[in-house]
């Protein structure tokens, strides 16, 4: 493993009972790279992110983040990564602002730095007015932006973002994109999943695709000779469109 490989995994397998969700995948992501991990629903993206972030243990295989593995240096890795998990990881009984203050406190930021960054992130993500809302009272988009802010507020060297742009308004999505691009330019490594291919086309340096638990594509984006949409549809098996004749016909004629 090269020392610049911030994320490294080898022969990673995850079984849920008899079902194999992730099937012997191996890859690495270099420092300062934005790596997009693409695939249809149920392909194994989120399971892979969960294994890379220590939320679940792989059935077998090796995972190393910043050269460390969870078995030996769990808290050391956790303190150096930012995560936007699939279910967002928010507490119903904390407000948006309190989530950010909690993150600052736990990752060892001083009170003033936490305050300053909280203000900056709330402004940028258009959450300032809703800062005192409890997470359970927020829309899905607001919850996602809160989880994103929690992932970046402590300036971690590696970020894992599971579908960060889904359900977020275009303005906030653009702000998030620009934050990620700037962070990557300064050396942050970013691993993200998404279904919004147009956004990935603008953002990613490296593209990986997974299908039925196996990696079917892994290259730099610049090496992809077709558009990302074309590549995606070529590699994924999609059902043939079917005409549902009842849809759009006179709704009262059939009752």
């Amino acid at each position: 493993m090269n020392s610049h490989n911030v994320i490294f995994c080898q022969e990673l397998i995850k079984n849920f009972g008899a079902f194999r969700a992730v099937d012997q995948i191996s890859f690495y992501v270099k420092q300062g790279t934005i790596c997009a991990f693409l695939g249809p629903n149920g392909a194994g993206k989120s399971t892979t992110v969960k294994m890379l972030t220590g939320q679940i243990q792989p059935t077998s295989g090796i995972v190393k983040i910043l050269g460390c593995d969870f078995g030996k240096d769990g808290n050391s890795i956790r303190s150096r990564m930012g995560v936007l998990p699939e279910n967002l990881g928010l507490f119903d009984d904390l407000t948006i602002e309190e989530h950010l203050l909690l993150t600052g406190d736990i990752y060892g930021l001083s009170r003033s730095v936490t305050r300053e960054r909280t203000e900056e992130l709330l402004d940028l993500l258009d959450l300032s007015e809703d800062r005192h809302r409890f997470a359970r009272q927020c829309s899905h988009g607001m919850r996602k932006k809160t989880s994103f802010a929690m992932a970046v507020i402590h300036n971690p060297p590696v970020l894992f973002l599971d579908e960060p742009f889904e359900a977020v308004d275009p303005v906030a999505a653009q702000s998030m994109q620009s934050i990620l691009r700037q962070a990557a330019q300064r050396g942050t490594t970013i691993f993200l999943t998404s279904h919004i291919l147009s956004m990935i086309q603008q953002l990613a340096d490296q593209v990986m695709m997974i299908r039925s638990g196996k990696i079917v594509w892994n290259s730099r984006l610049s090496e992809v000779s077709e558009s990302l949409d074309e590549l995606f549809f070529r590699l994924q098996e999609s059902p043939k469109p079917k005409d549902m004749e009842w849809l759009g016909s006179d709704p009262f004629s059939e009752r």
Partner: protein
Amino acid sequence: MARLRSLLGTLKTLFFRDWGTLSSFQGNNLFTLGIALLFLGAGSFLFFAMVLMGLVLIFPASASILRKIPEERWSVWPLRKNEKLFLQLAGIAMNPLIWLVILLVLWGKVSWEILLTIAMMPFIGFLLTVSKVSVCFPAWLRLPSFPWRLNQLLRKNLREISSTLDFYCASGFALVSALVRLNGNLPDEALLPLSLLIVLIMSTYAQNLFGLDGAGGMVRYSLLPVQGWMLLVAKDVVVLMVVFLLTLSLNLIAGMCAALMMLAVGHAASVRKPIDQMRWRFQSGGSFASGILQMLLLIFAGFSAGHFGVVFLVPCAILYFLSISYCGKLLRSF
């Protein structure tokens, strides 16, 4: 008519599902104690405990069942005004408190003040449904800060514990006991048992410390660079604060010893077998055996503290620290 029938069917399903969640107290230590005392012949205590439990339990159930229908769905369904009114009235009719009032009226031996009080509950529930006012607690936003890096977790845990019925039941006992003591009608011998009773009411919560964090909260815990024991301490501090306040006017030392023991036993169940809990319900216990063990040990610790005094805090604290160190590691290994 067909869609009204279908909606009434859905409301009926929601009603019975909601009613099912009220049975959460089945694994609750207070319930277990009540049953035990019934067999021991202490029927008057059982009656008192069950009345209090019943009232605390029934209030959240008094809201109209229509609140279960998502507002967005209610507003886009193609229902006429008279159909909506019919459903709102059906919501009232499905309220168990209305049945209770009717039964009490037929019985004819209950004063009209009590009937009015009970009847007010579904009426308030109906108003909340019609006016779409959501119940919120602005005071929860203004909780004090704690000088610790897990400050926000402590504040969250305080909000969680104050959304359980166990907390209100224990507070009810503590308040009544304090008032009786203030009037000089409480003998000194009753202070220790009452303190233990308050800890016992809170003990089921201690078996399910993570029950209200939900899936999101558990994922966040797994991502935080914090030792497992610290997450447990953040939960325990809040429980100990509550017990401290509730037993302050009774036997504080016995209360704290019992609380340390209750937490020492409760950690294992909280970590090994977390069960999702619901707000505004009594908490469900992890297992019957662990509930019995917890009750026996907390009663033992409380009576020993009554006998040996403040010095008995030391063995309780040692057991507590052993438990937190072991279960903290367990918490991180899952």
